[in-house]
């Protein structure tokens, strides 16, 4: 098995995620700016669940067109009628209707298209309901972040917690940006997707941080590797794991997205999986290129690691002077226990 795939399989790949962190920061900053710009310019296309309104779903009968359905529903009273095709169904969105008006629309539709009245689904959402849903979600989000900060601070340390949370917000903003620019509808299901992203983004970060903790834990004062280098090794080492976990997580979501789009058209499944799909792609990127670099930036400020970095750097210079003929980079000469080392030695 030649090439990248084979090297990936062996975990034998060396991308300098941490060293190039300025590049990643730049890229992320750009993406964030674009996202925020999109949110500012376009805003989110909020679904009827947030704006308030009525939605009707009923089976599409052969020969009925969007125009026809719009006229039929408008006859029954509502003013703002939007008709969409949703899988095998028509989905009609109107302004918020009263109970009697809903019944009237159902009756009219039932008569005209020969659908039993009981088979015309309806949804009436009050204008303030969406506000309440999103308010609750925000509260949940804030509480969740605090809980996670505390938990990760205990399980790891506060720097890791902070890095993880920053990466998480990064993911959320960019996902929101994708929604703003693309104009995809934001529904409560989309929110479910956002919230799952939180979990995944953190799951990924936790796996990576766990490895970094293990690897850097072995670095003594006499180590020949800086924190940055050790972290990068850990990251390269867990790369395959990160990609694998992310891919495996995205696969079922892609299944939902596929089924949701082909079988059901609009609706919960599609909204949710779209958010997940976008979020997970962003999340995988951020756990590698945002969370760890931030962690390293924070860690390198600690005196302990600064001192180590100085020492290693000094040695590096002298070794380089002493043996210009040796191609091997200095970092390879560190302790023999790091798995990443074995890998490098072998080359």
């Amino acid at each position, binding site marked *: 098995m030649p090439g990248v795939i084979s090297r990936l399989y062996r*975990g034998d790949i060396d991308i300098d995620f941490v060293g190039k962190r300025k590049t990643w920061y730049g890229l992320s900053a750009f993406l964030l700016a674009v996202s925020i710009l999109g949110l500012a310019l376009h805003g989110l296309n909020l679904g009827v669940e947030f704006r308030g309104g009525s939605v009707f779903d009923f089976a599409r009968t052969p020969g009925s067109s969007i125009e026809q359905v719009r006229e039929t529903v408008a006859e029954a009273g509502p003013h703002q009628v939007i008709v969409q095709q949703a*899988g095998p169904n028509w989905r009609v969105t109107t302004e918020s209707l009263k*109970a009697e008006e809903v019944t009237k629309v159902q009756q009219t539709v039932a008569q005209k298209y020969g659908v039993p009245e009981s088979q015309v689904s309806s949804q009436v959402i009050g204008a303030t309901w969406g506000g309440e849903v999103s308010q609750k979600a925000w509260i949940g989000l804030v509480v969740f972040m605090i809980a996670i900060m505390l938990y*990760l601070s205990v399980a790891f340390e506060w720097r890791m917690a902070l890095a993880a949370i920053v990466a998480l917000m990064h993911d959320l903003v960019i996902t929101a940006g994708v929604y703003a620019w693309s104009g995809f509808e934001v529904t409560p299901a989309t929110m479910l997707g956002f919230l799952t992203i939180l979990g995944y983004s953190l799951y990924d970060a936790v796996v990576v941080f766990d490895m970094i903790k293990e690897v850097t834990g072995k670095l003594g004062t006499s180590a020949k590797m800086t924190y940055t280098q050790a972290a990068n090794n850990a990251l390269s080492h867990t790369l395959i794991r990160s990609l694998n976990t992310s891919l*495996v997580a995205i*696969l079922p979501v892609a*299944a939902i997205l596929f089924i*949701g789009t082909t079988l059901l058209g609009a609706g919960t499944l599609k909204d949710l999986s779209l958010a997940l799909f976008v979020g997970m792609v962003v999340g995988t990127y951020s756990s590698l290129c945002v969370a760890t670099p931030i962690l390293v930036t924070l860690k390198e400020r600690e005196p302990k690691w600064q001192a180590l970095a100085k020492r290693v750097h000094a040695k590096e210079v002298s070794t380089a002077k002493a043996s210009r003929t040796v191609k091997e980079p200095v970092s390879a000469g560190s302790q023999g226990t790091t798995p990443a080392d074995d890998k490098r030695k072998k080359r």
Partner: protein
Amino acid sequence: MAPPTSSQSKPGRTLLLLLVLIIVMGATVALQKAFVPKFGLDLAGGTTVTLSPVLANGKTPSQESLDRAVTIIRQRVNGTGISDAQVAKSNDNIVIQIPGAGRDEALKLVSTTAELRMRQVLAVAAAKAPPVQPSTAAPAPSGSAAASPAASPGVASTAKASAAPSGNATPAGRALSKALTAPTPEPSETKRARTSGGRAAKASPSASASAAPSSSAAPEDASDPLAGQDTSGIDQALLTEFRNIDCSAKNRGQGALDDPNKQIVACSDDGSARYILDKAAVQGTEISGAQAGTDPTTGEWIVQVNFKSKGATQFADITRRITSLPAPRNQLANVLDGVVIVAPTIEEAIPGGSARISGSFTQVTATDLADQLKYGALPLKFKQSSVVSVSSTLGQDQLRGGLISGAFGLIIVMLYLLLYYRGLGLIGMASLCVAAIVTFLTVDVLSHNAGFRLSLPHIIGLVVSIGITADSFIVYFERIRDEIKEGRRTLRSAVEVAWRRARRTILVADAVMFIAAVVLYFLAVGDVAGFAFAMGLTTLIDVVVVFLFTKPLMSLAARMRFFAKGHKLSGLDAERMGRTGRAEQTLQEA
């Protein structure tokens, strides 16, 4: 090398434990013959109404008043004959779920805020006319027989008649007689409880008593509940309505909004009696408070009611006016939600803005009544935040979509595991299957025993969690491969050492997911909460499966030649993973 852990030494036992767990749940399912989980309304079809309290800005409703509202709405919904409806609190909202279609009438009455009104009783009768049969067959049990001869004179004797049976009725049932008196306890009065209370669940004997006399007095009019009663001052239309109303029917007018300025016909809330009631004498808004308590002298449960100043005057007036009237016109009915919740006899004129209701209360019934008097119908004003009705076909579509994507997702992940991890992938696949089985059984058992209803957000949560579960295996497998790559261990010890490291990662990562699920479950509303529940559930199941299945299975597999020798297809092939020569040597030595 690795210190022996229990799972290392006895992987078989751990597996057995899991097997027992599965068999127990499987047996529960089989015993209950519940092979399919119960579905939520978005999958089964039905209407879901979310009511949000309308409050002055920033205020949150008290849990007590929400509970109270839930109870009342449940009573109203059940009263319409819908027995399978669910009414539950969800944070500050109330969610009503009504299966099936065309339940508009139920929707209308769930959020109306009725008011308590006090009305004088003008006439009373049993819930429905006794079958027209020979008068001797009059259903009245004990006292009515004695009463009937005396019935002919009319109202006055009817009063006595209805008084007698309620005393006698005690052995026959739990006839609750209520008397309304001034707060100063007078033992003689409580004993002299004279009237059939509207609340009386088993008071029908006394109620039918008032009908019975007429049947013997005027056999040709056996079915007329009004025979023998004074109908003066009652609107003719109401008399007809009264004759026709069937209070034993499930729908007996609960939730109807009564006009305080008109006479009305109403049923008792338990459906045992019907009344004609005068215009409202006192409005519920004039009640300043009501408490349940015990009578200091007799120790009986009573309800103490206090009025505001205007209400006190009104109450004093009405009690003074009707206390001397013959029964049933000396009863003051408390009408709530269109039904008579209690109709105590006024024992005396009650000035002073304070009254007490006595009778055969229990602590529960007394507290209940006090709450009803205090809060009126609904303790809060509600608005319908969302009304979602899903047709059965749309529900089926959604269910099918959810299930197909679940199966699809599961298969793709399994294929991926198999392709990437080969032999290890088989273990991963088996673990996923076990996780799927445990999840199904848990959902099934929960839905049949704990009122859980599987809905679309749950299914999505479960499908999404396939990834989380598989992630745990990947973390473990990669650790094992690391150990082998490092090449200092046999597979057996690699499996153990890798486990100790992977275990921590898995637990920390799962803890993060679980915290997310718990926070969202308790703070979010609607779909988000359902989704969070599924996520939390699968995270727990993930831990169970990894600990009780994947790990022991891996330990067992490490003993097999196929894995231990690093067969090409085992996923542990040293060469393909690029192990160093030194490591290879070690493994061969082992």
